[in-house]
């Protein structure tokens, strides 16, 4: 009896230590970044373009590029992902074909992002002739995060209680009514969380964007989706690989900006979840 109790305590301590270790590591990283990046992080950092002089370097082009990419990617990935998940969960016949489809989608979620970059280059940039534009970049990112969105949306839809559906049918609703007006709203918090987490992944991607032709330096903000673009991670990578130590500090400032956007995203996810769950439709 005593031994079992000991084991239990030990296990609890090990788990606690491991999670403390992970958090501490993150904290150390954050503190280090803040110390390095604080000096160059001011409002002009957000409103100026990159420069050969570290003190004047800003991240405007990358910031706007990333915001454009996120907006376009979200607009394309959300309906595509949710519609696919709805189809797979509610309509698709439960056969071998559907299972094959599901296994493939789950596998696609694990494909290295650079492969999506190559695909984007071949299809969007060259075949469809979209050139190196925000279109190509955001479509590539859409492909990249679609599997993640589909899988998480499927989970959310599956967790909608069967009784809700049956009650609607009993009242004489058509299937599309049920799916669109009952199942979808009930699954929305889960779906949105998945979408936002997927977008958080997209925001940090560098390799596929480089391949579809994101540029390193530009002195203008894209004004339409057919424009050239750059993104935060590219700009950060460029600064981090410069020989001058000052640029490494500028890179740290850039990382802080990227992290703030990520944090805002995650907070939004938490907030949406909280809010929508309080008022079930």
């Amino acid at each position, binding site marked *: 009896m005593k031994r079992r109790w000991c084991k239990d305590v030990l296990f609890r301590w090990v788990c606690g230590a491991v999670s403390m270790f992970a958090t501490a590591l993150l904290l150390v990283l954050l503190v280090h970044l803040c110390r390095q990046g604080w000096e160059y992080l001011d409002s002009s950092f957000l409103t100026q373009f990159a420069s050969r002089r570290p003190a004047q370097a800003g991240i405007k082009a990358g910031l706007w590029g990333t915001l454009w990419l996120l907006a376009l990617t979200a607009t394309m990935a959300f309906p595509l992902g949710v519609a696919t998940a709805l189809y797979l969960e509610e309509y698709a016949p439960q056969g071998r074909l559907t299972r094959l489809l599901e296994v493939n989608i789950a596998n696609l979620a694990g494909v290295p992002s650079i492969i999506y970059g190559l695909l984007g280059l071949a299809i969007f940039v060259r075949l469809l002739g979209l050139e*190196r534009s925000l279109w190509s970049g955001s479509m590539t990112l859409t492909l990249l995060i679609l599997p993640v969105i589909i899988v998480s949306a499927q989970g959310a839809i599956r967790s909608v209680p069967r009784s809700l559906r049956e009650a609607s049918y009993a009242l004489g609703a058509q299937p599309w009514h049920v799916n669109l007006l009952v199942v979808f709203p009930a699954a929305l918090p889960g779906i949105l969380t998945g979408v936002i987490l997927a977008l958080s992944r997209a925001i940090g991607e560098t390799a596929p964007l480089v391949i579809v032709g994101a540029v390193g*330096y530009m002195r*203008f903000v894209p004004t339409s989706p057919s424009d050239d673009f750059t993104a935060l991670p590219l700009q950060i990578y460029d600064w981090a690989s410069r020989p001058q130590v000052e640029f490494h500090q500028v890179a740290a400032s850039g990382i802080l900006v990227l992290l703030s956007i990520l944090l805002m995203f995650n907070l939004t996810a938490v907030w949406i979840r909280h809010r929508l769950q309080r008022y079930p439709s």
Partner: protein
Amino acid sequence: MHRSIKLKVQQILWGVSLGSSLCATSARAVVQDRVRIDGSSTVYPITEAVAEEFGRKSPEVRVTVGVSGTGGGFKKFLQAETDINNASRKIKDSEKEKAKAAGIQYMEIPVAYDGISVVIHRQNDWVDYLTVAELHEIWKPGSKITKWSQVRAGWPDLAIKLYGPGTHSGTFDYFTHAINGKSQSSRADFTKSEDDNILVRGVAGDRGALGFFGLSYYVENKKSLRAVPIQVPGGKPVAPAFETVFDGSYKPLARQIYMYVNISALQKANVKKFISFYLKNARQLVKDVGYVPLATEEYERLWSQVQKQPVLN
């Protein structure tokens, strides 16, 4: 069939772009105002500096600078997807043939010198210089050298740890060409990184290390590294520095770096304006970013050569 789909998609997306465009200028007109540059990451800081100053002066011209590497950049350049390609080496014969096949004429413009520094740990007190032959013995494919004592008699019996840039980089191409006689021919068992700062850290933290990378990375890290003077047969050992790279005495690891300009792009007013600005201001800007500029007369000669090109649109 395929072409018509492509056209259709383009039409639709142009429509959407225009609709969502924040400013209502015609998207087509914007294309005219672009100068598209891509290519070597070694040349990138120079082009960035020029684009920055040019952008302050002529903000209506949209200059974009990519970093696909010399070879990757040439692929785009030879499909006329870019106007200018930055190159840390000369254009290869295979690339020349592709240019001919695609009907692309280009102009080669050297923009600066770049030296490759061979570096060792700060506390390495036995290496006074290395000859090209010794470097070759160390770096040749299948080299059996694993200790400093095997390089020259009297050197310590300490393991030699090699550091170098990734095999895709122009610096690696040039180093292997200069030391081993053929680009890309090298022993494979060394620590590689595309990020030169990693190499700096590696060499700075390892007493037996020997590495090579761009001169500017040594200049910025003089406190933690030592650069090895290099001796060519019949010459004296020469240490890498801006002066020795400029006067050509630092051999064989100093080279010119280039940009290649598409001639039909050069005949567009904006591209010509950009190149002219580039060559007028190169001397100062090249120095600013830590490279060695060409002689003033050389920039002037290139500038007048560019002026001879007619502007067709």
